[in-house]
């Protein structure tokens, strides 16, 4: 390996040229062929039973997410201007290419099932806008008398009316969203206020704005990293080269993705962050080593210094890159495709960074010459910096402190971890005072809720007409009533029961006592037939299937967070035995439910891969250092770092979500680098000195220095993310910084102490003295 690197050094121009050429090609590929995946369904494992069922149910019942437009008037919506706005907006949405004609609901499209002296009528609430006082009053009465719209499409106080436009998952674009906002804004007047919300908006904004925010923040992160690199290394050349290594690795990783036609997923946007945090390490360790070498060998020439750098450092750089890559490759066990890609391409990026560090940096240094060495630091006799000496002394004198500290931290983290909760909410990722959250809260205040949970009651293929049986229908009704009254988060629910109760009532002279499920199967069947004759049978298709073997109950929730959804699921599932007895199974569908399952899947995969990567890394380290105890000790800092990460999240009430969960990979990726560098240097020093204390001191001086540089540089850079407008990006910044810090501290304290406690690497040296 060393000889290959040396041979390459003979042709620096060729190496540089080749590196640039490939980077240029992949960079072009990246800028031209990169595609962003915004359809969240593409993220889900298509063969997971929950998703298969949900997708099927979505097709059966036409379950789609709706854009919710709230039209409000200070006094009431029952005036010609507001009613006309409702009408014209409804018509405009219907004509949009992204929206199906039948997928828009509002008071203007709603059907009014009424009883009159004639019997049953299914009418429109209005087709031409009523002008007279009397007509407006009777419209208001019609709405207030109809449970199917009162409090559902028009608020109970009559001040807000909704237009819901359901769209397919894959049509949302920023242009479409802006178009909707424009259309709505154009219809606003002094009295009429219009707001837009709904899951497609939340998901879409999330998918589009989060990366956009990251794009804005990343340059600032980079600038700060560059500045702090320069402050630490005191060399412009070294700083530029290190940054180039990182940039090239990012370009290669993304370029390869583009070349293979793999789109960018939301998780992929974490890749640059990961690669920066991990990639700078190689450069820092190389350059830091060279600085120390030149301090100690002031007379050394360019070639000699570079040869020493690569000769000395290729091994730890290779080892760290391999261990880190293995850590990321363990994400291949995830069931979620984007996570697998994330793992593979981050691993690829890490290996690229290694290649560049070992080939590109030396070659470039050969060409442009060595950086100027820091002046005035080489005067000291001892080759150990006083700070390193003090630190080593401090740590090794108070070993108990490190061990006790680690123990306390582990216990605290374990306690904190108990409080960690999982959140699949999209809304919670936005600022509390953002428009999106405010509008959502506003609609939740007036209506059932912006989040839909679909309960699919399934009597199977042969369950013909089960949903005409009063027994089943009454149980459904009971379930609806109980869940609605018991849980504040559930605002409304809607199913075939609501149609039947309404029809039963209007067929009995609007008597409230008949607002119940019809008594016999025949009555149910005949009402349904009656409805088919005068209403739109497509409306029934949304709540019951063709054979009356499956029903769709929609619950409207005022929150999309996991706790809320789980509380509803728990309440519903209490009814499972009763339904099973009637031959009906309970299943769930819709985006809210899928989001929940999806988050659970990601976390499950993440935790699985964390464990696997830990085991693999212990094995790798044991092989590299030919001792299993080294492997175990080396894994201590990363384990502690990961534990602290989860513990802090528990105490600070930061929920686990897809972003924060992936961050534990950083803990391992970075933490293991520190440990490997330290172990490798410790081994070299142990061999050279045969003295435990001296070895510790020298290692601290060499590797401790590089590690602290690395930590300071990355922390400085990522703290910038604390100023991001997106809470998840802020959490990202804080957690990356924290991971860097704990890995750094853990390696230099507890790991050193544990190493010192053993006689590792000193086996063959009988003269080694104990501290």
């Amino acid at each position, binding site marked *: 390996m060393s000889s290959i690197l040396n041979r390459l050094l003979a042709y620096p121009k060729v190496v540089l040229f080749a590196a640039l050429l490939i980077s240029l090609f992949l960079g072009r590929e990246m800028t031209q062929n990169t595609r962003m995946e915004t359809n969240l369904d593409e993220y889900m494992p298509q063969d997971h039973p929950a998703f298969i069922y949900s997708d099927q149910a979505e097709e059966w019942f036409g379950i789609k997410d709706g854009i919710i437009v709230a039209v409000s008037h200070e006094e009431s919506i029952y005036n010609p201007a507001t009613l006309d706005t409702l009408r014209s907006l409804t018509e405009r949405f219907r004509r949009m290419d992204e929206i199906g004609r039948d997928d828009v609901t509002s008071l203007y499209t709603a059907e009014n099932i009424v009883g009159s002296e004639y019997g049953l009528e299914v009418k429109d609430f209005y087709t031409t806008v009523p002008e007279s006082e009397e007509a407006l009053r009777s419209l208001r009465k019609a709405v207030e008398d109809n449970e199917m719209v009162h409090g559902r499409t028009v608020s109970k106080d009559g001040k807000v009316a909704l237009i819901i436009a359901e769209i397919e998952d894959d049509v949302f674009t920023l242009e479409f969203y802006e178009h909707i906002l424009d259309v709505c804004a154009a219809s606003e007047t002094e009295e009429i206020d219009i707001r837009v919300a709904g899951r497609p908006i939340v998901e879409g904004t999330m998918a589009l704005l989060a990366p956009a925010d990251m794009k804005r923040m990343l340059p600032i992160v980079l600038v700060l990293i560059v500045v702090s690199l320069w402050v630490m290394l005191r060399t412009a050349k070294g700083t530029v080269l290190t940054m180039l290594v990182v940039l090239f690795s990012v370009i290669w990783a993304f370029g390869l993705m583009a070349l293979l036609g793999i789109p960018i997923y939301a998780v992929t946007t974490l890749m640059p962050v990961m690669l920066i945090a991990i990639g700078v390490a190689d450069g820092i360790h190389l350059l830091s080593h060279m600085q120390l070498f030149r301090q100690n060998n002031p007379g050394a020439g360019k070639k000699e210094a570079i040869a020493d750098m690569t000769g000395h450092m290729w091994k730890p750089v290779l080892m760290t890159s391999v261990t880190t890559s293995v850590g990321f490759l363990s994400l291949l066990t995830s069931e979620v495709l984007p996570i697998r890609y994330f793992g593979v391409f981050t691993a690829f990026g890490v290996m690229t960074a290694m290649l560049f560090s070992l080939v590109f940096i030396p070659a470039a240094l050969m060409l442009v010459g060595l950086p100027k060495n820091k002046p005035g630091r080489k005067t000291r006799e001892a080759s150990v910096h006083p700070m390193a000496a003090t630190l080593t002394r401090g740590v090794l004198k108070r070993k108990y402190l490190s061990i006790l500290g680690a123990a306390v931290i582990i216990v605290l983290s374990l306690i904190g971890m108990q409080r960690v909760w999982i959140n699949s909410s999209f809304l919670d990722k936005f600022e509390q005072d953002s428009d999106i959250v405010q509008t959502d809260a506003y609609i939740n205040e007036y209506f059932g809720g912006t989040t839909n949970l679909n309960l699919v009651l399934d009597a199977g293929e042969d369950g013909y007409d089960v949903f005409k049986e009063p027994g089943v229908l009454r149980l459904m009704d009971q379930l609806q009533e109980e869940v609605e009254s018991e849980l504040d988060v559930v605002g409304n629910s809607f199913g075939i029961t609501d149609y039947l109760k309404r029809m039963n009532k209007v067929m009995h002279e609007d008597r409230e006592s008949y607002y119940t499920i019809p008594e016999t199967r025949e009555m149910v069947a005949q009402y349904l037939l*009656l409805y088919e004759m005068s209403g739109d049978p497509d409306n029934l298709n949304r709540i019951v299937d063709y054979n009356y073997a499956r029903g769709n109950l929609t619950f409207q929730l005022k929150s999309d967070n996991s706790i809320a959804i789980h509380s509803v699921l728990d309440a519903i599932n209490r009814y499972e035995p009763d339904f099973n007895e009637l031959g009906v199974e309970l299943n769930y569908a819709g985006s809210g439910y899928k989001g929940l399952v999806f988050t659970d899947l990601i976390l499950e995969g993440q935790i699985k891969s964390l464990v696997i990567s830990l085991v693999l890394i212990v094995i790798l380290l044991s092989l590299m250092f030919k001792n299993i105890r080294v492997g175990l000790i080396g894994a201590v800092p990363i384990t502690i770092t990961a534990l602290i990460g989860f513990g802090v999240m528990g105490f600070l009430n930061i929920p686990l979500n897809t972003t924060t969960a992936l961050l534990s990979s950083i803990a391992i990726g970075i933490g293991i680098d520190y440990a490997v560098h330290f172990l490798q240097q410790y081994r070299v020093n142990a061999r050279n000195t045969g003295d435990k204390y001296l070895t510790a001191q020298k290692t601290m001086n060499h590797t401790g220095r590089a590690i602290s540089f690395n930590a300071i540089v990355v922390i400085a850079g990522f703290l910038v993310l604390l100023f991001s407008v997106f809470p998840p990006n802020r959490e990202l910044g804080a957690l990356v910084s924290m991971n860097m810090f704990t890995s750094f501290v853990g390696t230099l304290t507890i790991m050193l102490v544990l190493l010192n406690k053993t006689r590792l690497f000193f086996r063959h040296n009988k003269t080694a003295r104990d501290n």
Partner: protein
Amino acid sequence: MYTKIILMALAVWMTAGFHATFAQSMSGKEIIEEVYYRPQGDDQESSLTMTLINSRGDQRVREIRQFMKDLGEVEKSIMFFTSPADVTDTSFMNWSYADGSDDDQWIYLPSIRRVRRISSDSKTDRFMGSDFTYDDLGDRHPDDDTHERLPDETIDGLDCYVVESKSKDPDYLYSRTVTWIDRETLIGVQKEFYDRDGDLLKVLTVKNHEHISGFDIITHSEMHDVQRDHRTIMELNDVQINTGVSENMFTERMMSRGL
């Protein structure tokens, strides 16, 4: 003998020739009127099997015994469900007026033992939840559309007139329809319906017709809603024409009495 044959041949040739010339000169409107006024008897009694099929192939089958009587000013019909069991004896009555005013409709639900009026806003309502509207079933008056004759075509071996009809009312359910009419029986054997945006919405195909008591009666037809991919198949059995169905058949009392 010879003369007789020659005369007959001449008669055949002349009628055929006359018909051909007449047909050649018929306008689209005239053809549609021929179809609209095609005699179908004064009353009819039959069993109707209506099969609704959705895009997944699920079926809903309904069996109905129906009676119809044309009283000139008003055409009355009454239908009794005989299957499925949970709607048996449900009955439905429709009075359709020649002057074009809204139909009167009643339904009787045996489960609540009550006859109810159904108010239908227009003739574009679905007939019993099927893909047919009342208009599609032959209620639409020729004067409601403008008609244009297109070049004749042959479909399924039948020589057909082709007429394109456009609604005079721009808000009508269909912007236009194209009808293929069998020149021999004057039965519209195929019809395409285009929605307000001009896209194909439905296709009606007549699969079978029978000559019963001197009238050509459509006994098997299918309406395919291509946008929803939903079909309705209507099959008529035991058709009896001009048996003298009593006018007393079409009353609310009969609805609740059942068959």
